[in-house]
C-alpha cells in the first residue's frame, strides 16, 4: 500500500536542458560562451531557474 503523502505526488519537473555556461576550473566559476561570468548575469539566472528553491532537488532536499 502506498503511504498517504504519496497520494499527492506529481511527476518531477526535471531541469533537463543544456545550460549556456561551462565550469572553468581555473576561475572556479561557470563561464558563458562570451567569457562572461554566469553568476553576474542575473537575468539569465532568473530565466534558467538554476538558483530557485527546487533546483537540485533530485539530489538535495534542502530547498
Amino acid at each position, binding site marked *: *500500500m*502506498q*503511504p*498517504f*503523502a*504519496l*497520494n*499527492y*505526488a*506529481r*511527476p*518531477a*519537473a*526535471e531541469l533537463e536542458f543544456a*545550460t549556456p*555556461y561551462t*565550469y572553468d*576550473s*581555473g576561475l*572556479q*566559476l*561557470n563561464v558563458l560562451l562570451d567569457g562572461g*561570468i*554566469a*553568476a*553576474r548575469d*542575473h537575468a539569465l*539566472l*532568473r530565466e534558467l*531557474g*538554476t*538558483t*530557485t*528553491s*527546487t*533546483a*537540485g*532537488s*533530485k*539530489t*538535495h*532536499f*534542502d*530547498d
Partner: protein
Amino acid sequence: MTVLILTSEEDVTADMVVVHLHALGVPVVRFDPADLTSGVALSGEYVHGAFRGHLSSAGRLVSLDGVRSVWVRRPGAAAARALTPSAWLTEESEQALYGMLRGVPARWMNHPDAARRARHKPWQLRLAQRSGLPVPATLITTFPQAARDFAARYPDLVVKPVSGAHPQDPPRAVPTSRVDPDSDFTAVAYGPTLLQRRVAKRADIRLTAVGEELLAARMPADPHADPDLVDVRFAPAAGPWQPAEVPPRVADAVRVYLREAQLAYGAFDFAEDADGTWWFLECNQSGQFGFVEVDTGQPISRTIAEWLGRPLADEQPRSVNRAGSALP
C-alpha cells in the same frame, strides 16, 4: 588562509559567492567530493603527536591548517565519480575527507553534524517552538485514527513530506497539498504522515540567516490564485520577491534557533497570516538563496563571502563551539 567550498561544478549559486571571495582577495579551493580519486586528492599524516594534511584539486594544493572556513554547499557523495565507484569507496572517502576536516580549527557553514540534525523536520518544529516562533498545529503519525481526529479539529489542513526528500523511481515531487478533512486516512498506516493546519497566508516569507545577519524577503499571495495551490515552490509566481523588515521578536527567536542548532546559515520559510504573524514552516540548513538575491538585490552572497572570508582569529573569542558551526 583559504576558504574551502564543497559543491558541484554546476552550482551557479555558489559562483555568486566565489565572485565576491575573488573580489575580497580571499583564496578559494572549490571541488566536489564526488571527484575524489578522480581529480581530487587528499593526504593526512599523524606523526609525533602532530597532524599535517593536504587537499588538491585542479592544480591547487591547500594545507588543511591553512583552511579558515569550510562551506558545505551542495557536495556530491564522495568518490561517486571515481573510476570504479562503490558504496564501500564512498564510505571510505567520506570518512577520510570529513574526518580530516573535522580535526582542523576551521569555521563551518554548516558543520556536518549540525546539518544532519537540522534536516529533521520534527526536530525543527520543536526547536522553533522553544525558540519562540509560532508553529502551526502539526501532527506526524502512522495512526489513521489520530489523523482523523486531527482533521476533525483542524479541518483546513495540508500534508507535506516529513523529510522533504523527493521520491525516485520514478522521480516525483510531493508539494505541500491541501487535504480534504473527510479523506480516507487508512494509508497513514503505511508511512509517517505530516499533517498541518493550513495558514491562510497573505504572503510567503523567506528569511536567509548568515551568521547574525538576517535578510528577509516577502512575496504577497495572489488573491486570485487557486486556493489549492499552497506550495510557493510549485505555484505560479505571484510576483518578484521583495525585501522585508524582520519583526524584532522574530529576529530574536531566529537567532535563538540558530544558536541552539549551531547553524551559521539557515533559510527559514514562514507563512504570513492576515494579522501579520509569521508562522514557522521550516528551516533549510542549506537552502537556496540565489533566486531571492536575483529578485531583491539583497547582498546575500556577499554576506556569505564575508562570513567565510573572515580571518579565523576574529572568530575564536565569540564562537559557540569550534567543533560545531560557529556563530559570529
